[in-house]
Structure formats: structure tokens, C-alpha cells
């Protein structure tokens, strides 16, 4: 019991300390972003990297999630003869919730961790000190391109995930469960409103910013050699994923 409380206290302290650093570095990132020069070349490089890093895993996730969603709802809806609505359920859940959140989680695992590992190893090999010694603001040079890239890439990945997820649902419903293809398609779009799409799109942008900021901060504040880099990478994934889930709740509640 005592140990549990100690661990809990330690966790709370770390959380407070980390969130303090998080806000300071977020402030510096915003300042670095606003202040010219705008290093578009660096942004573009990260944009490609975050995107390419994440596309395969995001598409696979979306395809199978759409598929399993169709399977499950079909089984359930069959009981009260509402199979016709499977398309609507798949489309709505993908667009509003599952595409942005699952994409966020996957990018936290893929790109957030890569950012922490890269900045962490730069920290322990004194490359970040070298940047500063060459009169370069490390937050502007390292954070800003990654945060900008992730904020822009995530909504685009979500569009892909929306489309692929709905396709997964269609394939399963039509090919495995024998739904009428024309009707399924009509049904998919019938009840969709523009805000279903935009809400997921905007959420994704916020998730991207959070994941990149957390990944960069964890890497930037790495202490203690290769072991420290490992710790930073792990906590970038854990904290990035938690941030996505918590932010998702509040965004859904407050905004949409």
C-alpha cells in the first residue's frame, strides 16, 4: 500500500514537472513558429517523413477497423432487421471518431516515438549543444518543423483513413455478408453531414500538434545516455496516446 502511494506520488510529481516543461516548450515552439525566417524546406522534409512513416500503418488500421465494424454491426443489427443501416454506422463512426483517434494512436506510436528517439540521441551525443553553439535556436530548428508537419499531415491521413475505412466496411458487407452493393453505398452517405467530416479533420490537427510536441519534448529533455533515449521513446508513445484519448473526449464534448 505504501509502495503504491509512493509510486502514485512519484507519478504525480513527474506529471507536474513534465507538464510544466511541456507548456514552456510549447510556448517557445509557437514563438519560433511565428518569428521569421519561415524554414519551409525543413517543414516539407518533416511533412514527407511523418507522412511516409505513418501511411502504411494508418491504412491497414483503417481497412480492418472498417471491416470489423461492418461485421459487428451486421451481426447486431440483423437481430432487429436493421442490416440496411450498417453502411451509415460504419461511415459515421469512422468519420467522427475512429479514423481520427486510431490515426492519432498510430502516429503517436510511429512518428511521435521516432521524434523522441531522434532528438534524444541528439541530446546525449551533444548535437543539441552543438546546434546552440552554432547560434541556432534548437526549438525553432527541431520542434517547429515537426509540429507544423504533424499538424498538417494528420488531417490528411484522416481523409485517407476515412475513405479506406468505409471501403473496408463495404468490402466486408458486400463480399462476406452479401449486402446489396448499391443500397450499401447509398446508405453510407445518406445520413452524413459535413460536420461529421470536419470534426474528425479538426481533431486530427490537434492530435498531430500534441503528438509532435510530446515526442519532441521527451527527446529534448532526455537524460542519461542510451537508456535515457529508450525511456524517452517509451514515454513519448504512452503520453502521446493518452493525450490523444483525453483530448478526443474534450474536443468531442466541447466543440462538436
Amino acid at each position, binding site marked *: 500500500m505504501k509502495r503504491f502511494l509512493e509510486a502514485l506520488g512519484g507519478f504525480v510529481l513527474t506529471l507536474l514537472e513534465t507538464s510544466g516543461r511541456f507548456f514552456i516548450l510549447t510556448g517557445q515552439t509557437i514563438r519560433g513558429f511565428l518569428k521569421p525566417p519561415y524554414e519551409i524546406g525543413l517543414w516539407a522534409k518533416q511533412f514527407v517523413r511523418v507522412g511516409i512513416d505513418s501511411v502504411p500503418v494508418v491504412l491497414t488500421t483503417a481497412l480492418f477497423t472498417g471491416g470489423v465494424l461492418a461485421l459487428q454491426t451486421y451481426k447486431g443489427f440483423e437481430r432487429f432487421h436493421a442490416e440496411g443501416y450498417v453502411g451509415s454506422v460504419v461511415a459515421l463512426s469512422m468519420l467522427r471518431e475512429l479514423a481520427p483517434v486510431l490515426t492519432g494512436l498510430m502516429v503517436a506510436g510511429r512518428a511521435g516515438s521516432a521524434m523522441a528517439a531522434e532528438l534524444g540521441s541528439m541530446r546525449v551525443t551533444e*548535437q543539441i549543444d*552543438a546546434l*546552440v553553439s552554432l547560434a541556432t535556436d534548437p526549438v525553432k530548428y527541431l520542434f517547429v518543423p515537426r509540429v507544423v508537419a504533424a499538424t498538417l499531415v494528420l488531417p490528411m491521413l484522416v481523409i485517407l483513413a476515412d475513405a479506406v475505412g468505409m471501403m473496408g466496411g463495404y468490402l466486408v458487407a458486400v463480399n462476406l455478408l452479401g449486402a446489396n452493393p448499391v443500397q450499401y453505398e447509398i446508405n453510407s452517405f445518406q445520413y452524413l453531414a459535413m460536420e461529421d467530416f470536419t470534426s474528425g479533420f479538426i481533431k486530427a490537427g490537434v492530435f498531430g500538434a500534441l503528438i509532435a510536441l510530446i515526442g519532441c519534448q521527451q527527446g529534448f529533455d532526455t537524460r542519461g545516455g542510451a537508456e535515457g533515449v529508450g525511456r524517452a521513446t517509451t514515454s513519448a508513445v504512452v503520453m502521446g496516446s493518452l493525450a490523444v484519448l483525453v483530448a478526443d473526449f474534450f474536443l468531442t464534448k466541447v466543440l462538436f
Partner: protein
Amino acid sequence: MTEESTTPAIVLEKVSKRFGRKVVLDELDLTVAKGESLVVLGKSGTGKSVLLKHLIGLLEPDSGKVLIDGEDLWSLSEEERGKRRRKFGMSFQEGALFDSMTVGENIAFPLQRHTKMSKDEVAARVAECLDLVKLPGAESKKTSELSGGMRRRVGFARAIALTPQILLFDEPTTGLDPITTDVITKLILAMRDKLNPTAVTITHDLKVAFTIADRVALLRDGRIVMDLPPKEFEAVDDPHVKAFVAGDSSFEDPEETTLR
């Protein structure tokens, strides 16, 4: 003009620094004149790197002042401090090369960021710097292909690309074989001849120290306990200095000094 030339390049006034409970620098005073070459000796873990990082503003003292050309570094805004850092060229213990870039890109980095040089001018300057460190034509090499000695030399080349007035060397020869050590020592002498900078070098190697120093200082318990020209330093009758001179730094495991 006369005032300008008598202002010391570097002054530390009662600089203290602690990490947690560990006091690393304890009201340390130090002055380095323009064009002078100071070598700082000290056991591993005494805070030599910490001292060097205070000179260029990589670390902020808990108390005390760091004056560069008479200007208090920490009374400036971060942006102004950044500009002052262009006066410096720093070579890190393991080179600290950017491993996402080639050798040439590493050296071009400060030129691209802080000058308006054209592509050709940058390439010419990179080639010139690589010549100076005796690595001509190494531009397209990856940093992972380099040996320890080569990494240090590329680090030198990057540090001098903007022709800084102050050079800082953190253990430039630690962990290198005697021949490579000799090459690096000669390089440091050549860079001094060519650029005539103020230089602060940290080393364990007494031979290196006595070759390149105008003054040798010993760091111990957070302070400079001895600060003399090389000849007098060697002859001094102080138990700590004697221990250091006779105690043979070559017996120390060179790898140990690379751990932080």
C-alpha cells in the same frame, strides 16, 4: 581602440553552478586575454565540460557573471545571446557531428544559416576548412564512416567555418592513439597561427597542454587552484599539481573520461 584591445575576451566572476546537491563550480574566477591560449586540466568529473559550457552560454550560472568582451551574457536577451555565440567555435568531446548530414553539410550548416554566401562560396569555404584539418575532399562522406580522430577534425572544421574569435576545445585528444593525438595537436597549433583566436582547451594530456598553452590552469573542487605559464606550472611545488603532473594521466582509462 586601446580600450577594445585591453578588454579581456573572457571573464568569469564568482561563477557557481550546482546540479541537484552536487556543487560543480564554486565561485570560480577566471580571465582569458584576447589571443591567449588557456589550457584547463582536471580529473574526470570535476566540471571541465561544465566550465566550458558556461563560456558559450550553453549553461547558465546559478550565480556570478560571464563576461564576453566585457558584455554580461546573461543580461542579454536569448536572441542577443545567440548572436554573441557566433564569436565562438566549439569542438565537442566526441565531435557532436549532426549524423543526419554528410561531412560537407555539417560544415556548411553555420555558413548557410548565418551568412548570405552563394552555394559556390559555401562549397569553397567548406573545402578550405576541410583542407585546414587535413581532410580534403571528404565532403560527401557520411559521419558514421568516420574514425574518432576524423570526427574531431570535422568538428574543428565546423567550429572554424565562421572564423570565430574564440575557440573552445573539449578534450580534443581524449581516447585517441598517440599518433592521432600528435596530428590533432599540430592542427590546433596551425589553427592558432592561421586565425589567432582566443582559445580555451580542456585536456588530460600534459604533453598536449604544454605544447599549445600560454597558460595552464588546474580545476579542482569547483575552483581554479593553479593558473601559471606552462614552464612554471611544470615546476610548481604544490602537492595537487605534482600529483597531476607525475600521477600520469596516461594511466587513466581514456574511455572513462568520455562518460558524463
